[in-house]
């Protein structure tokens, strides 16, 4: 036993080193899959995520020929005594046109809480053509007990929306957040109007308490 195994010791060592290199590569690959997945989804729009900060309006002629139904769905979260309501569940827009819809957050609980409304678009390819100029979803919201707060969503469906898409559903799901993480979102392309808008809607005093 000694001689055979000893004789092959260098070869065994080489094999082990090679397998360890593969192993290390696969470990790196496993974690690299997370950013790869994000990039892949961003490029293809596959998981229906929208941009996480304000986008600028694309100036283009409104396509009067086409009308797309825009539907809004809001969902609460387990353990979060909030309600999120939209003034109109469904509107009809032309591609290229910008539109505004108001959402109302209500804290029905007995203490101040922080939450965020996380968007998702169906069908997912539409998420590439949905531009949000102003959205409450870019940041966490803090509501005192019993407080309510209305914020607008200003969006545009661009004209390159695939023609087979007749209806787009935008779902907002509330998720509770840690209490100390109210963050202000930064506009991505520094458009002055967006920055102003974002600041305005973030400001509770002008947010319209009811």
């Amino acid at each position: 036993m000694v001689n055979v195994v000893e004789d092959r010791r260098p070869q065994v060592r080489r094999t082990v080193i090679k397998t360890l290199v593969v192993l290390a590569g696969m470990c790196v690959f496993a974690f690299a899959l997370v950013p790869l997945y994000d990039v892949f989804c961003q490029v293809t729009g596959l998981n229906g995520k929208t941009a996480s900060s304000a986008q600028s309006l694309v100036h283009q002629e409104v396509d009067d020929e086409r009308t797309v139904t825009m539907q809004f769905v809001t969902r609460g979260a387990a353990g979060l005594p909030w309600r999120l309501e939209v003034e109109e569940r469904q509107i009809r827009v032309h591609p290229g046109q910008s539109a505004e819809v108001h959402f109302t957050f209500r804290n029905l609980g007995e203490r101040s809480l922080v939450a965020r409304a996380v968007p998702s678009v169906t069908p997912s390819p539409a998420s590439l053509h949905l531009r949000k100029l102003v959205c409450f979803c870019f940041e966490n919201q803090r509501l005192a007990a019993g407080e309510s707060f209305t914020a607008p969503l200003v969006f545009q469906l661009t004209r390159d929306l695939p023609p087979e898409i007749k209806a787009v559903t935008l779902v907002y799901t509330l998720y509770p957040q840690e209490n100390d993480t109210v963050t202000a979102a930064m506009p991505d392309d520094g458009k002055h109007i967006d920055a102003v808008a974002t600041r305005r809607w973030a400001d509770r005093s002008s947010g319209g308490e009811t």
Partner: protein
Amino acid sequence: MASLPPKHRLQSSAADSAATGQHEHHRPRGLMRWVLTTNHKEIGTLYLIFSLTMFLIGGVFALVVRAELFQPGLQLVQPEFFNQMTTMHGLIMVFGAVMPAFVGLANWMVPLQIGAPDMALPRLNNFSFWLLPIAFTLMLSTLFMPGGAPNFGWTFYAPLSTTYAPPSTTFFILSLHIAGISSILGAINIIATILNLRAPGMRMMDMTLFVWTWLITAFLLIAVMPVLAGVVTMMLMDINFGTSFFNAGGGGDPVLFQHLFWFFGHPEVYIMILPAFGIVSVIIPTFARKRLFGYASMVYATASIAILSFLVWAHHMFVVGLPLVAELFFMYSTMLIAVPTGVKVFNWITTLFRGSISFEPAMLFAIAFVVLFTIGGFSGLMLAISPADFQYHDTYFVVAHFHYVLVPGAVFSIMAAVYYWLPKWTGHYPHLRLSQWHFWLSVIGVNLTFFPMHFSGLAGMPRRIPDYSLQFADFNMVSSIGAFMFGLSQLLFVVIVIMCVRGGKTAPAKAWDGAEDLEWTVPSPAPLHTFEHPPQYRPVEH
């Protein structure tokens, strides 16, 4: 599972006994002999005993589930505990029973089949075994923790396994890490052994199919166990360190979990079946007294299945909302796997064709494997049809499918292997009449258990639910009766193995007259040290 080869039976040349004799004097006795052993046969035995223990524990969990499902309504356990039982049953059977059993068989038989004196890295071998009892003690201990054991299914989908998980999940993650390290080290050892320690004259294409399938399985393990480790690490961070890999509220994506899990999970199911293919490809030629038909095509088919296994993972996720293109891609790539698998089944049947067949217990299990695994393969093809899967998803049809490929598939192949090699391990033939009883009770029990699940699934019964509508009552009662029949007949298996270790009809070196591989050239029971001088391998044409 086998007895230890007695030391006084060491059969080696004078020079060898001088060399190993000294070594022998320092060997620890009693318990420490097993804790410290670096001998591939002893470690193989430890793996097999461990796996049998886990098989019985996981089986008890399954019987709790089947007992609850015997009738509609809640009788025996609470839904929370029911969920823990389904989860632990799956985890224990996959990671604790089937995988270690194959590693144990590899430890015992790979060196014997390639004419090597031991595994290439004997101490690492000892370490990879002893990680397993630690991992599974930890996993089983979660049953006694506040909040109970993991209850989110063996696939531990986030956020069920993160946001909504019991506190014991952190222990579960640690135990999976340890079991994963054990598998990886075992795989490295097997690769190093097969590639470097073959007998002089043995080319790769001379190796038995069991060695070939294990080599490919070991590469699969190296490739995907790090992904599993990565996924559970991300879960750990989501649970304990406030990251949001899988938490939509923090910018993560729960669907990412499913992609990562099944990127590991689909190759994992082939890790559990490729060695089974190897075992059956060794047993059928022996008892058909013919050479294996299409040896080279078997090797290439195994390799193709392994490569394809990386391209089909999303067929587990047809209903998450994949785009049409992805549905089609994963549907067709999945169906493509039926081609190499079909090649294998064809080769087994052609090997049997006009063979001189005898039905020893090992052969009974191997033939049952071919028939019943094929049934599981066909239901797999049905599930691969994406639009049909929208109907079958998360029903008992899926449960029927994967139990057909894992129980009469993987588990039957392990039993076939045990019956086939017990004479080599213990020097005795297993009791023939009792083995036949064990086979027939098992095969009837398995089909009674799992065949009705196809029907209850097609009728719409969901998985992982402790209660069900009245129309499923008859199917479930039959399933439960079959499950107890199958479960209890495994006690007979334990009795047979113990009897075989203690005595029985003495087996010669070549225990089966059609067996041609290298392991049958060493005495039965195999002495502790074999092939200290490598045998000169005479190539047989395949």
